[in-house]
């Protein structure tokens, strides 16, 4: 084959046709690919639909506002179910100045500026070091410790220990009564249940006690040095503040003094000691570099995936293998062990060929053919008859043996009628 394809410059005059056959020329060329304008015109509906859908998504995101996404529990400005915007706003309306602090330093500063302020601490993630906590607590006039963990309790009120959460129904009517002398608890009358504490000495007062009489547990404990420990977070959050006496309890605990420092420790409070984190170990450029590689991969996918024009369709003819029915019939014989039928076919075929060899008419009877064949070969007629007609096959072994003997017979007849093998 010569160069199958090449491109050569030609003059504007038509060149000689490459083949001697009649040649047709076609010069019609209209674009099938739509222009940008045509594309927009044809797909106006879908484009508008896409814009509307995008608008709806954006609008709903704006409407949901800060509620969307993962908010910090008890954040002062969060209207989400686990935020604490409700109680903070009510306190503000009641004339309490609320100082929101994110770090220990800020909380410190606020406490120094407003001596005697109430400090509310909630550290669900355990960012705050216990030494730092006791330092801050010592500066505050009053402290409300919300859902403290073991370390915090050890640091601030070592006589109070965690007693777990009673598995009590939230909506049960027989919520335990205050049963203590704390004014806030008495006014509240009841409170959300949850994390409870046990008391090891007589200096602390427990409220809303439940459990066995010899070891009661209290969701609210007030120590003698002005620290109120509230077990259930639900007392303060937006979702549960209106239930039971939660609102009264929260407002009384937090609004006792004119100033409130609302301190939720963040990652900034983590001690920068110990082994360096993974983030500190990785170089700055790692994330941008991997993003670039990902973008490169996308570009490469577009490069390789972009089709060079539309696919070409072609109607292909049906392909019917001719041996299909034969093979199907053979497997059918075998599966149903149709030995008689199979052997019949072999016998009729062999008889026909033998008759042709012996120059008998095609219409001659099988017995006649068998007798003539026996005479030709000098064998006993009953033997040939058994082979060609009589002996019924009873097993697969019989079938194979019979087929072999038929073959032998045909070969013998061939030799007998044509000893030199001229016509074979």
């Amino acid at each position, binding site marked *: 084959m010569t160069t*199958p*394809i090449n491109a050569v410059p030609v003059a504007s005059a038509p060149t000689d046709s490459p083949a001697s056959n009649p*040649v047709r020329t076609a010069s019609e060329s209209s674009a099938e690919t739509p222009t940008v304008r045509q594309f927009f015109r044809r797909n106006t509906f879908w484009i508008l639909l896409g814009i509307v859908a995008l608008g709806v998504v954006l609008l709903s995101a704006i409407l949901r506002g800060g509620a969307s996404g993962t908010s910090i529990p008890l954040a002062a400005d969060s209207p989400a179910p686990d935020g604490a915007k409700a109680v903070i706003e009510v306190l503000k309306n009641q004339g309490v100045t609320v100082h929101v602090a994110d770090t220990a330093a800020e909380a410190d500063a606020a406490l120094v500026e407003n001596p005697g302020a109430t400090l509310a601490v909630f550290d669900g993630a355990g960012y705050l070091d216990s030494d730092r906590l006791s330092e801050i607590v010592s500066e505050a006039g009053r402290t409300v410790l919300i859902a403290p963990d073991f370390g915090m309790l050890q640091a601030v009120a070592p006589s109070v220990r965690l007693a777990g959460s009673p598995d009590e129904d939230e909506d049960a009517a027989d919520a335990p009564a205050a049963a203590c002398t704390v004014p806030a608890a008495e006014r509240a009358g009841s409170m959300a249940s949850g994390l409870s504490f046990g008391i090891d000495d007589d200096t602390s007062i427990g409220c809303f006690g439940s459990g066995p009489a010899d070891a009661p547990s209290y969701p609210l404990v007030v120590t003698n040095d002005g620290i109120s420990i509230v077990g259930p977070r639900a007392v303060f959050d937006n979702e549960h503040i209106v239930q039971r006496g939660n609102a009264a309890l929260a407002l009384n605990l937090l609004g006792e003094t004119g100033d409130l420092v609302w301190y939720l420790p963040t990652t900034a409070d983590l001690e920068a000691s110990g082994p360096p984190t993974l983030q500190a170990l990785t170089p700055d450029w790692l994330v941008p*570099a991997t993003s670039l*590689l990902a973008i490169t991969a996308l570009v490469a996918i577009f490069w390789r995936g972009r089709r*060079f024009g539309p696919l070409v369709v072609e109607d292909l003819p049906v392909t019917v293998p001719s041996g299909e029915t034969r093979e199907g019939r053979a497997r059918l014989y*075998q599966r149903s062990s149709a030995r008689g039928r199979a052997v019949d076919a072999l016998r009729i075929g062999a008889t026909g060929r033998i008759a042709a060899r012996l120059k008998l008419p095609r219409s001659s009877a099988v017995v006649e053919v068998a007798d003539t064949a026996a005479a030709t070969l000098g064998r006993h007629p009953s033997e040939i008859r058994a082979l060609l007609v009589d002996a019924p096959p009873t097993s697969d072994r019989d079938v194979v043996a019979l087929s072999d003997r038929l073959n032998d017979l045909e070969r013998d007849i061939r030799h007998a009628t044509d000893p030199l093998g001229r016509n074979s």
Partner: protein
Amino acid sequence: MAITGRLVWLTALGLVPVVVLGQATGEPGLLLGAWLVLVVVLLAIDLAAAASPRATALERRLPERVRLGEAADTELLVTNTGRRTLRVRVRDAWQPSAGAPGIRPRLTIPAGERRQILSRLTPTRRGERHVETVTLRSFGPLGLAARQVTLRAPGTLRVLPPFNARKHLPSRLARLRELDGSTSVMVRGAGTEFDSLREYVRGDDVRSIDWRATARRQDVVVRTWRPERDRRIVIVIDTGRTSAARIADEPRIDTAFESSLLLAALASKAGDRVDVLAFDRRVRARIQGATGAALLSRMVDALAPVDPELIETDWASVPGEIRQITNQRALVVLLTTIDAPAASRGLLSMLPQLTRRHRVVVASVTDPEALDAAASRATLEDVYRAAAAERQLLDIERVRTALTQVGAQVVTGSPEDLPPALSDLYLQLKATGQL
């Protein structure tokens, strides 16, 4: 729009500034953004600078027909009608079985100039091969991106049946000449039509001496005979479902085409008139009234796009179709399949109508694999297969007997053997004056 590998590498190259400068300045994210903006800007510039592939005129030159197995040289002329130099990659979207070389040439065409793309098609299948579109990718000067457009440039190439059986033609023509009296060997009975009188030469059959003419002249004169001429031959090709079966990797219909082409070539040389009909439930192709060289070219042209249809052939309307072609006595050749008695019932019930008026030959391809399968009996599986093959052969034999009983002649053969066998039967009929 399409992009090139160069753009991918350009994007990847951004790793260097992001890592090296990013470490130095401490702002790798900013550098990443800046690099991406740079890439997008370069892409936009390149796209804007690329010549519009719409501003091209395409012209296609191709031969109208090509025989299967041969190659066709085609031309595609691309004219740049725009004002910028076109750097373009071309895809000529031929159907796969047109056998186009899978090469997409790159061309640079200055404004107002034209380039020619030569490509050689080697079709792999009979029929009509189409091309509808040409896709052009016009690259920008930076080679980062391309504008892609698909233009209509239709073309059709008719791929004719190969007629491989023509290798049998010379020997059959030689035998035809022997019949014709144009060679010195004269065999009495080699024809029934009186041709001429000529002088006796040694070796002539004494029985052909015309004594009356010899009496008038001084020399011994013999009569010569020639085969009949101007006989009608109607070839009916069955394009129904059975013709789709592949035997020795050739559909029955292709063997039928080969056989009919060889027969038509021979018969038109012998002076007979040949008409061809491809039929299943309606006429797929009809060649009537063509003689000589035009006959073969019209036949291949008409038969090229005919493919088997997966429907049962309507034999009952075949006599009517033949009556439309000729009212004279004719040799009717039915190229079909004789398979099982049940499947051939339509053919068998129709045949008496034909044999009453015409001489009928039924030609069918036999499967050489059936004979092989009937002979191999090594394992149990083989024996059952042999039994099935024997059953198949018996079925064919029964149909053949039935066909002979209603007065048709049957010729069978493997795909290789059928075309010459059919021609030999024709020659035999002609020699014995049975047409």
